[in-house]
């Protein structure tokens, strides 16, 4: 039996997962071009993390679960229902951007319609929020769960500890997924933590902890699916660590050549989960030359369209500056 059928995933589902991962990558690449062309002032990338982001999102109930994504989660927000056009609108900071109407920097996602909590810049504040959602779900006998992501460096913040502990004490339906991309800006993993795995910390909270290869969509899907099942059954939260690599500089304002070797990045690019997943799909005859070409073309034309639309869309009027401070 193949890996996807073992997990109960259909050919359509895995192909859809790949399409969204590829979309995230292509959107991100376009954003860098737009940044370098002086069209948008800032990009923070998902590249290298799309596989885990999309695979994890597919393990959720996308009709009812809540999410609190962090700034790299282009794959998550696409999988949960944000459109390419909406992503471009936030990159261009236009009034129509559903995340914040252009008030926040790109990568600060949020949509009430998608049950995606609004995020901020200080890292890790979203963890207690997701725990609060879990608490509210438990109080209301709502079988939705909360899925929250953050980087491995961010797992050192107090809010990580406070949130994780609270969730475990009250056995709340929460999945905390640490996207370990080996760097927090320039600071490498071994200078962030002394434990072998971020998931080791789960023991201290009395919750399930697990480290998976973030480049392996099946491993991520399985871990998050099981975590979601446990959460829904009332057995409490889980800490999932998905290990991958940040393929780009931290952001468009960073120069990663000052702290890591090009050789290291080159090697990581060879291990890109998007490549191995593509090979898997080809080997299983799910992705063919023909549907791949079509997929790329469709994505490109959607991105072109979205870019033109967002570029031409108006900014928020200065008259709106004072709106939304209070009801």
């Amino acid at each position: 039996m193949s890996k996807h059928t073992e997990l109960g995933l259909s050919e359509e589902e895995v192909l859809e997962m790949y399409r969204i991962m590829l979309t995230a990558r292509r959107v991100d690449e376009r954003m860098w071009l737009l940044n370098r062309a002086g069209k948008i002032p800032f990009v923070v990338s998902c590249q290298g993390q799309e596989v885990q982001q999309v695979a994890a999102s597919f393990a959720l109930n996308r009709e009812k679960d809540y999410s609190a994504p962090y700034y790299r989660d282009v794959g998550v927000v696409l999988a949960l229902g944000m459109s390419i056009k909406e992503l471009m609108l936030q990159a261009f900071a236009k009034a129509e951007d559903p995340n914040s109407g252009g008030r926040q920097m790109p990568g600060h996602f949020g949509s009430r319609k998608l049950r995606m909590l609004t995020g901020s810049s200080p890292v890790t504040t979203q963890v207690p929020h997701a725990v609060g959602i879990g608490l509210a779900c438990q109080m209301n006998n709502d079988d939705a769960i909360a899925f929250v992501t953050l980087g491995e460096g961010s797992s050192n913040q107090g809010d990580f500890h406070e949130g994780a502990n609270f969730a475990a004490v009250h056995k709340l339906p929460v999945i905390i997924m640490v996207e370990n991309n080996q760097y927090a800006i320039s600071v490498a993993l071994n200078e962030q933590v002394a434990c072998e795995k971020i998931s080791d910390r789960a023991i201290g909270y009395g919750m399930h902890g697990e480290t998976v290869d973030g480049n392996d969509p099946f491993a991520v899907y399985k871990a998050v699916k099981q975590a979601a099942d446990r959460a829904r059954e009332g057995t409490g939260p889980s800490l999932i660590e998905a290990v991958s690599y940040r393929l780009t500089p931290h952001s468009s304002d960073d120069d990663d050549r000052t702290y890591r070797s090009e050789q290291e990045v080159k090697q990581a690019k060879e291990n890109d989960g998007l490549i191995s997943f593509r090979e898997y799909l080809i080997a299983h005859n799910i992705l063919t030359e023909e549907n791949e070409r079509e997929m790329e073309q469709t994505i490109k034309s959607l991105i072109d369209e979205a870019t033109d639309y967002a570029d031409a869309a108006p900014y928020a009027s200065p008259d709106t500056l004072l709106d939304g401070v209070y009801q």
Partner: protein
Amino acid sequence: MPVVSYIEAIKTAMEEEMERDERVFILGEDVGKRGGVFRATEGLYERFGAKRVIDTPLAESAIAGVGIGAAMYGMIPIAEMQFADFILPAVNQIISEAAKIRYRSNNDWTCPITIRAPYGGGVHGALYHSQSIEAIFANQPGLKIVMPSSPRDAKGLLKAAIRDPDPVLYFEHKKAYRLLKEEIDNNEEVIEIGKANLLQEGADITVITYGLCVHYAKEAAKELAAEQGIEVNLLDLRTIYPLDQEAIINAVNKTGKVLLITEDNKEGSIISEVSAIIGEHCLFELDAPIKRLAGPNVPAMPYAPTLEKAFMVNQDQIKQAMLDLALF
């Protein structure tokens, strides 16, 4: 009408709101079985159960942050900070998150949380159980801050805070808990947030203050009226952020002489902003310089009774300051 203490008024407000709306719940340290270290939630655990009166782990950022998450879900949390002094670990959640959720999401998400915190000195609480920390939050649009001065206000303002669609910080004075008592009828009074309260009208001087200092000012004004015939125009700010500018301006213009009082340190305090408003709007109506009475600029209130007394603004000081201003 029953006589109700300040702390009973707080408890009753929560009880009535929890009764009225199932979404209202309490979370904080020792709020459940113990009923709060000051007994502000006494009996609520027994009445509403452990799911609506939640004993949390000892972690203030989580108390605020988990409350914020639940509020985004659609619940109405009342988060208790055991002492206002210990709200500091939660400041990031309050200022970066609660205050900005509506604005940053362009009105998509809202955060109707109430955060209660006992503040104030004169209770042998020393540096870390006596502070007035409202000024830290009082320049954060998106937040509202109320500080009740009487049992009636404590009840009406807490009900308003709980019903407010935005985050409200509710600072209650520890010394007022059992010191202040008054008759409150059992009605459902909700006191509007954002409006100051002109407690008494007078033609000679204006006093503007909030919280427990209102009580001292009222008593001092009574004595001055009896002894010297001086009539005090007394404005209780009630909401210290955002300030009721119109009420401040009207109160000052009425007498042309104004005394501002806070228990907090003078520098950068609430009354600093009040005096800026007065300077901006009332300069030509003033017959005397703005007078401020506040705690000294030391880090916080010391423990030893002599030092604590020397720190606290008291009724005698207030009376003297009122007299000096009246005679100016």
